[in-house]
């Protein structure tokens, strides 16, 4: 008999007999209805408590703000998506301004440029599928256009979040977006920059992933 069948058979023919499943009441996860402003305040407070940075901006002002942020960090290169409106907006913006870093488009399989991705990219910018106020989390579903490593390998990760897409809790976000009906190959909650406390519980940032997480909130 295969190991699979052995294991399943042992589980099915339990000597203690059949088990009864208890009811699960999820109402303890419910939160009062918060306004967008309240959710944003909460999100900002929580993500900043873990070293994330929040910049409130607008549909028209985010590129200016991004340019400032990247200049203060002397970023030379910024990784963008090919199709997404964020990437497109940046590409057209660079045509008539000098203050943005060199744009790199993630449009080739990683194998063909892995070394460059790991060593030459200073920052990456991605969209989000919303945020979670209670835990200060960003929801990312990497895709063909915005691959998984965009938010992981560059030392600075910039995420664009629409304030109107903030949820109060993870539970609420998952229910509202119907995650149970199907998940992408990879989905992420990102709540701050990469960190470790493995050396005597002393916090250090950027251990494997980005050292900085900057959220541009479009209000």
């Amino acid at each position, binding site marked *: 008999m295969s190991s699979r069948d052995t*294991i399943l058979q042992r589980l099915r023919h339990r000597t203690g007999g059949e088990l009864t*499943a208890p009811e699960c*009441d999820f109402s*303890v996860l419910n939160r009062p209805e918060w306004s967008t402003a309240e959710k944003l305040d909460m999100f900002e407070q929580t993500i900043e408590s873990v070293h994330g940075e929040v910049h409130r901006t607008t549909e028209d002002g985010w590129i200016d703000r991004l340019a400032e942020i990247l200049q203060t960090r002397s970023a030379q290169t910024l990784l963008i998506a090919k199709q997404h409106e964020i990437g497109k907006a940046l590409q057209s913006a660079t045509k008539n301004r000098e203050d943005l870093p060199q744009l790199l488009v993630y449009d080739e399989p990683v194998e063909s440029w892995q070394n460059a991705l790991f060593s030459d990219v200073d920052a990456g910018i991605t969209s989000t599928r919303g945020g979670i106020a209670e835990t200060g989390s960003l929801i990312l579903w990497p895709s063909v256009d915005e691959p998984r490593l965009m938010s992981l390998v560059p030392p600075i990760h910039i995420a664009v979040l629409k304030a109107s897409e903030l949820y109060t809790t993870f539970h609420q976000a998952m229910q509202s977006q119907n995650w149970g009906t199907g998940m992408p*190959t990879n989905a992420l909650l990102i709540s701050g920059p990469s960190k470790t406390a*493995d*050396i005597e519980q002393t916090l250090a940032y950027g251990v494997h992933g980005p050292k900085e997480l900057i959220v541009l909130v479009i209000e």
Partner: protein
Amino acid sequence: MSETAEQSPHHIDVKEFHPRARAALHNPQIRQNFRKAMDGLMTKRKSSFEGWDLETLRDLGANIRLRALANLPDLLEQLEQKLTENGITVHWANDGDEACEIVRDICVARKAKSVIKGKSMVSEEMELNHYLEEQGIEALESDLGEYIVQLAEETPSHIIMPAIHKNTEEISQLLHDKTGTDLSHDVEYLTANARLQLREKFMNADVGVSGVNFAVAETGTLCLVENEGNGRMTTTVPPCHIAVTGIEKVVPNLEDVTALLALLTRSATGQHITTYFNMISGPRQLGELDGPEEVHVVLVDNGRSTIYQDDELLDTLRCIRCGACMNHCPVYTRVGGHAYGTTYPGPIGKILMPHMVGLDEGRHLPTASSLCGACGEVCPVKIPIPDLLVRLRQEAVDGDKLHPAKVRGHGAKRSSMEAMIWKGWSWMHARPGLYRMGTNLGARFRKLQPGKIGGWTQYRTAPKLAAKTLHERMKERSQ
């Protein structure tokens, strides 16, 4: 279960708990390192649950786990089906050895020479690194704590913070000796160097091996909880990802994960959430530019289906591996994780490891507790750890009529002398006349009582019999 004493981590004899505990108690460095860390973790956990109805949340956590366990075989089949539909290959392993062989076969088929690992306690159970090295495959840990422990050729001393037994100075010296970094107490410098060293390894690894925190049956999703990003690297950069997980980690719905995640990170490190919550539901699809081309899941039994048979012991399988029980354990805090000599230390280790190594090997584990109850009070899924410790103590001396012994190696601690004494004790206590005579005699001849009674008086003074029996005193009172 095929694990034997010879296969326990680094060939440590689990039975030798006492000498190791004694040595740890006399090591001020170890005691200081653990005390400091555990105090911090207890405080952080407490403040992270502020504003929560924690008891209700723990009830929900317990019910979610119990519901999953009640439907375990069906859920595993559903999980297998969903994972397969998603393009993930599912393997089943009866024990650690078989799981190791499965990983090896995948590596061999891919001609893999190097494996990079994310943190996985199941892989520690399997002793996978050791096995792969023997097969000529390099296995490198990438979680900073695990990396440190591996460089030191040790095992983790805590399931969440593997290198918690070391202080900065010790780690600095170790990294200097093994990797050539400068001696420095600057944690940022040490971390930055580890980043550089490991980034090379991520890029060159042929296979990434990770654990799983929750496996969701409805969508075929593997959930990984981490702060560093090494888990994401491990599961994204190499062309092949192998996830190893205990069969009990499956839950029916994504909704279940929201509550368990809220409990897990707060109980473990006092975080509202970890930096990354990584949900993997398939390999790289056509058109995608990164991610592994192959994803495998190894469902490891290794004794879990045996634990599953018994209504009481079953509760052991609720565990979500947060480590809160060890953070709050007065014994763990004093002796540290290595004294146990087991993959899982602390209270969860004391109720889980006897099943994995047998009660003959693990006979001292259930008794390494004062039964203070702290572990049970903080457990996010309400595992009655103290009750299970008592149950295993009974099993170690061969159970009783209500609980016929079931755990492998039961009766290992049974002494016929002790059994006889207790039999006599119960015989006497069932006969009031005899009992009174006994206590009367005890009171009269109390001066003859020995001052030293074995292990009891090693650290305590001997209890003294009272001059008058309780019956006598009650009689005086009523006069």
